[in-house]
Every structure is written in structure tokens, then in C-alpha cells.
């Protein structure tokens, strides 16, 4: 069976490493990383992504713009997108959810919180 693919988008390398090492505890997952919205946009059409985890605050293209792109595209419409952001106000969460985020996880979080969410989608 082909492993499921998760794309992690965050401009912080240390943050990506942390996310990836947490995800790796789940076993057979293919985990791709993108350091910004541009890299994510490159990967999306080329790989089948089963779950997208994205930060919001990134240069050039932010997480909300990325999410908006994903949701406007019929191909990715069904892709679960989890926003992982330091922005934790109800307004921010509302905005993310209204753009079609599947989940909104506020940093800092416990690894278990992330795994719980990810398990729902894979």
C-alpha cells in the first residue's frame, strides 16, 4: 500500500523538524516539507497530498492565501488542511475556519494534540 503523504509548510526549519519528528511517530507516512507558500505551491500539483499542515505567518504567500488557493481548486477541495499558528484569537480562528480549514491548532501545543488531529484524517 502506498503510504499517505503529509505536507508540512512552515518557514521555521526548527518548527518543521519538530512537526516532522512528531509525525514520524505515527509510522508509515511520507512527509514532505515546504519552507514557504511558494514551495508548497510547487509541490501541490506534483504530489498527491493527503494532509496539509500550514503555518499562517509566512513571507510572500501566507497560510491563509495558501488555504484559499487550495479551497478554490476543485482538485484539492477535499484535502484536509490543518492550520498551525501562533495566532490564537477567536477572530483568527474564525477566519481560518471560514476559509475552509479543517482544524486550527494554536502553538504551542503538545505532540499528542497534533497526533490526535492528524489521526482523524489519515
Amino acid at each position, binding site marked *: 500500500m502506498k503510504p499517505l503523504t503529509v505536507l508540512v509548510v512552515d518557514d521555521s526549519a*526548527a518548527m518543521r*523538524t*519538530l512537526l516532522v519528528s512528531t509525525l514520524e511517530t505515527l509510522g508509515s507516512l511520507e512527509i514532505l516539507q515546504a519552507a514557504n507558500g511558494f514551495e508548497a505551491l510547487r509541490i501541490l500539483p506534483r504530489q498527491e497530498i493527503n494532509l496539509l499542515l500550514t503555518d499562517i*505567518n509566512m513571507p510572500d504567500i501566507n497560510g491563509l492565501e*495558501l488555504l*484559499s488557493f487550495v479551497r*478554490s481548486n476543485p482538485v484539492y477541495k477535499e484535502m484536509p488542511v490543518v492550520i498551525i499558528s501562533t495566532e490564537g484569537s477567536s477572530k483568527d480562528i474564525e477566519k481560518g475556519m471560514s*476559509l475552509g480549514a479543517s482544524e486550527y491548532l494554536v502553538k*504551542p501545543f503538545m505532540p499528542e494534540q497534533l497526533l490526535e488531529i492528524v489521526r482523524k484524517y489519515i
Partner: protein
Amino acid sequence: MSKAPAPSRNAALDFLAEAEEVVEDLGTRLGELSEMAEKDNWDPDLLNAIFRDAHSLKGLAGMFGFAMVSEVAHHTETLLDWLRMGKVSLTSQVMEILFASVELLTALLRATLDDTLEQHRSEAENHAKRINACLNPPAAKENSSPLQQLGLPANMTSSLTDYEEHRLQENIDKARFIHVVHASFELASFDEGLGELTATIKEHGEVISTLPSMGENMETHIDFDLLVGSKCTKEQLDAIIAGSAASITFSGKATTAGETARETLPADKPSLPDAPAAPATLEQQPLQTDTILNDKTPKAAPDELISAKSISSTVRVDIGKLDELMNIVGELVLAHSTIASITGKMRAEGFSRTAIDLGKAAKDLERRLGDLQKGVMDIRMIPVGQLYDKMTRIVRKISREQGKKIDLKLFGAETELDKLIVEDIADPLMHIIRNAVDHGIETPEKRLAAGKSERGTVRLASYQKGNHVVIEVEDDGGGIDTEKIRCKALQKGLIQENSQLSEREILELIFHPGFSTAETVTAVSGRGVGMDVVRNNIAAVSGMVDLETRLGYGSRFTIVLPITLAIIKALIVFCAGRIYAIPITSVIESIILSADQIRTVEGKEVISLREQTLPLVRLENFFRIERIGKPADEQYVVVVGVAEKRLGLVVDDLIGQQDIVIKTLGEAFKTLKGISGAADLGDQRTILVLDSGSIISELMRSNQGG
């Protein structure tokens, strides 16, 4: 908020490396911002980038469980957020607080390493109070929301962050036109195309948001909608972006009164403000541009699928790993030397086919080893420019504190040096620059009185010179008064009343332990670190520091450093029954010495070399060791020199040149002068490596003392 997870030590180191980078960036950008702010014309993009730095740091520190770092970053972020949202204005006081944030964050990151974070708690709390004091609730904005009346397509506005909304509002408030520019790019190279387009538009306005959208052919293309605020009308902007793969799909202008003056729009653009997110309406337009692009450019290569994974082309490596690798390379070089010498012996013992073949193989190995060595060395090389950012910040900070006006001119930032040397040179260099700003450059009043321009200049230049890198720090300040130094040295008993010292020798006194020339010890330079420590730190990486000065015109420090310490070529010499290595970088020449050339001046041996007097040193005297065996009839003088100073080392024999790997002797032998470490000759023999720089300074010191 939930408790942060406990990260592994490795992850914490990752965090530190990145956090340090972010804080450094933050400081550099703040410096730029402060310069712009002085001219009262700052770039919102820059401020936003600074905000993002603080924001990333907050998130990072939070995730990795460094609550105090996260707290300080959070407060800083809040202040920056208020700034970028226009709720606080950029006063010099705010700037000051932001710089203080960087200092504090730097200190906190250091403290996370040695677990002394708690010591900074009150400092962090006070800083938070200082920031909070700046944040006054802003007057409620009467906002008739011209944004809504503008009638922007809903998909454009729904993904705007608060900040982008604020920027949009700002543009509307400034009565600028708001445009949506649509562009389609090939997937393989969209960032270039988009970058160019964005840069072009930025010359005439602001790109508020960049929204990716689905292209006509999503396998090969990707589209973007750029939300633009600009003084240009639709026609003007059209002309500006003409020739690119972009077109304007929306233009509008909201008057401050709330009335909307819409420009004529293509009939097929229904842009109802309350329409649900329906990006498809926008996507119909750029069909034409798409086809043009398709004609011009070949289809995406099929192998691009493979490239999806390897996107980042850099790897962050612990310097320790490189050291290990370098050590292995060093051992290999030694192993090669052994093979080569065995080959030599074999050949000497009789003409043998095997010896010739082995010799060839050894030559081949040597070449490859050379490549390997160079490769590993290259990885260790980093541009000196990394230090420049730090120095820029220090100069800005001190000049601000002391009310001096200083231009820092930087040259040769691309000059490369071993990472370890760059690290070790940072503190001494900082000290020299501090001195230049603190003691060198005069106050604007003094400068004007001396007929100089109000602004002082500190010049920091690096360049490569043979196997060395030279770093110069030059200021056009008051220079150093050698008479003052003489008096001070007399007071301290470093010299005697009747000592006849040249200007040069007097200047040398600055590097004497415990010598501080400042009339008043200020908070900046007077940190108990004297120039002797600076010299020792530089000598520790086999470097040399030299000082020139002209009273009234300024001073120049010249630091000469080896490019790398890992593997060096050395001259192997035999003296008093022992073998030593002298780094070839400090050897100028070797000459044969005959006894009748030696003259004695003030009880010290010298020879005359091309009309210059060259002082001689016998190693057995210098190290105070017993000579093993009689001196050879014919001895050699190895002329060593660092910077302007020359010295002749008298040795019994020259053995040859060899690559050596210097190993440090450890703490126990740290006080040993004249020795920089030990090396393995490759034939089970371990020898000491001489440090010419420290031998020279040691002798100068004893001369002055006596």
C-alpha cells in the same frame, strides 16, 4: 495555553541555531528601520518583516519550551504589531525599546545554553513593563469602511490577514487606487516571474496581498492575483505592466467620504461585494496570456516530478561534525605521508618496479586527498560578512548612546574565512570596533571644532592576501596620543623614566596586560577587557594584530589571520636535538648562518640582513631547555615575521615542508608561550608547533620590561 512539549536536546539545539539567526536578522532589520525612520520614510514591508521575525521567535520558543524567550518575543511582537497597524508611532523611544529587545533576546538565548535563564527574569519583566507603557489604547477609529464600498472581489478580501487589511485601509486613506492584477506563470519558474512582476509594481505602489489561484492548466501553470495600492490609474498601471504576463482585472478608488469612484471594468467582471468566494469568475480573464505563455515556452520537462522533494539545497551542519571530518582528512594526509616516505625508502634501497608503482599510486592518492581536503575546507568557509551585521549593530548602538554621528563603511564582506576563526575573532573585533567608536571618533562638536566633518567614519575592510585574510578597522577620529600612553606606562611602572622608546614601541604598550588608555572608563569600552586580551585571542587563532595611528587623524588596526587552522603547511626544523614545526605562513625565508655574521647589541645576538638588523633567538634559550648534542658548525636562520615584525630563529637543520594537523595541548599547557600546539609527523613522532607571533610578542615584552 497548553504546556509545551519537552523537546529533545537535538531539537533544542536546532531551535537555538534558528532562534539566533532570527534574532540576528531582527537586529539587522531594526538597524535599517532606524536609519529609514531618521529620514521619516520607512518601508511597511520592512516593518512587517521585523514583526514576522518576532512572531516566529515567539512561536519557536513557545514550542520548544523556552517560556521566557517566548514572553519577551511576544511583548516585542505586540509592540511591532501596534507599530505596523499604525497604533503607535515610530519614535526614537520606541526604537530604543526595540533595540533593547534584541539585546535581551540575545542574552536570553545565550542563557538557555548554560541554563541561567532565571537570572534574567526581573530584566525580562521590566522590559515587558517598558513595552506595555508604550501601548496606549488608540482612539477608536471612525471607520465608515470604504473597504466594503470598494467592491473588491470577495475572494481577494477573505484571505487578507489583519495586517493586510490595515495596509489596504492605509492605501484607501491615502486616496490611492486599488487594483487587482492577475498573472499566470509557468509552474516551473513562477517565483521568478512573480518576483519580477512584484518588483515592477512595487516601484509604483504597494503589493498588499498575493493570492494564488488555479491556472487554466494546473499541471503546468499557476495564477496569482495581486492586490495593489498605487497612485497610478488603471491606464498608467496597464502601461507599467505591459509586456508581462499580467493584466488588471479590477480597479477602484474609494474616496475618504466613503463614495466609490469605480473605474470602468470589463463587463464580464461581476464583483459583488457580498458574493461568496467565487474565484472562478476571475480565472476566466487571463486565457489569452496563458496561451501566449504556452507558445513561447516549452512544456514542463517530465523529470520535474522528481525534483519535488529536493527543494532546499542547504544543510545545516554542526561544526563539530566538520571538525571530525577535518580530523579524519588530517589523519589521511598523515597516512599518505607515511606511504610516501616508505616509497622513498623502498626506492633508496634498490630500484624496484613495485616502488615506482606504489609511488604513482601515492601521487594519485595525494591529488585526490588534496581535492578532499579542499572540499572539506570549503564547507568550513564562511563569509566574514556574517560578522559585519553584528558590528553594524554595535556601532549604531554605541553611536546612539553617545550621541556621535558615525558612518560605518564595510568592504569585502564576501572574503571567506574558516568558521571557527570567524567565531573566535568576533569578540576581539567587536572590542576593537567599540574602541574606535568609543575612544576614536570624537563628538560632533569636537569634530567640527577640529575642522572635520560632523560625521565620523569607521571603515571595516577584509581582503585575502596570499594564505591570510586581513581585516582592517580604521577610524578618522582623534588618533592615539603616544605621550599619554608613555605617561600612563610610567605611572604603572611598565617603563622607566629613561627608557628610549620609539613611537611604535610606545604604541605596543597598549597591548600590555592591564593597560587601559581611556581617561574615563565608560560603560562601552571599560569592561575590564584590555587590548592584551584582544591580542591574545587573536594570537590563539594564529593571528596578529597591529596598530597604526596619527594624532588628530585617526587609527588603524590591522588583523592578519590564517584562512584556516585545520591543516597547515609547516617547515619542519631540527634544533638543540628536538624537532619543531613552524607554520609556513609565518616563515619569510631561511638563510645559512655563519658564526662571523653574528654581532651583539646590548647583549643580544643580531645579524645584518639586507641592511636591516634582524634579532636572533636561539630556541634552547627561549624555552630554557638543555641542548642535546653540540650545535652544528653550520646553522640556519629561519626568518619569521608577522605583520611588520621580523625575527630570526636559529636552528640546526631544516628537515623539510609537510602538511600538519595542529592539535591543541589542552588547558594545562595554555600558559606556555611560543607553542601553539602539537602535531603528528606521520611516523609515530609527535612534535611541537611553534607560534611565531607569540614568540615575537613575548620577546618584545621582555625587552620593554627590562
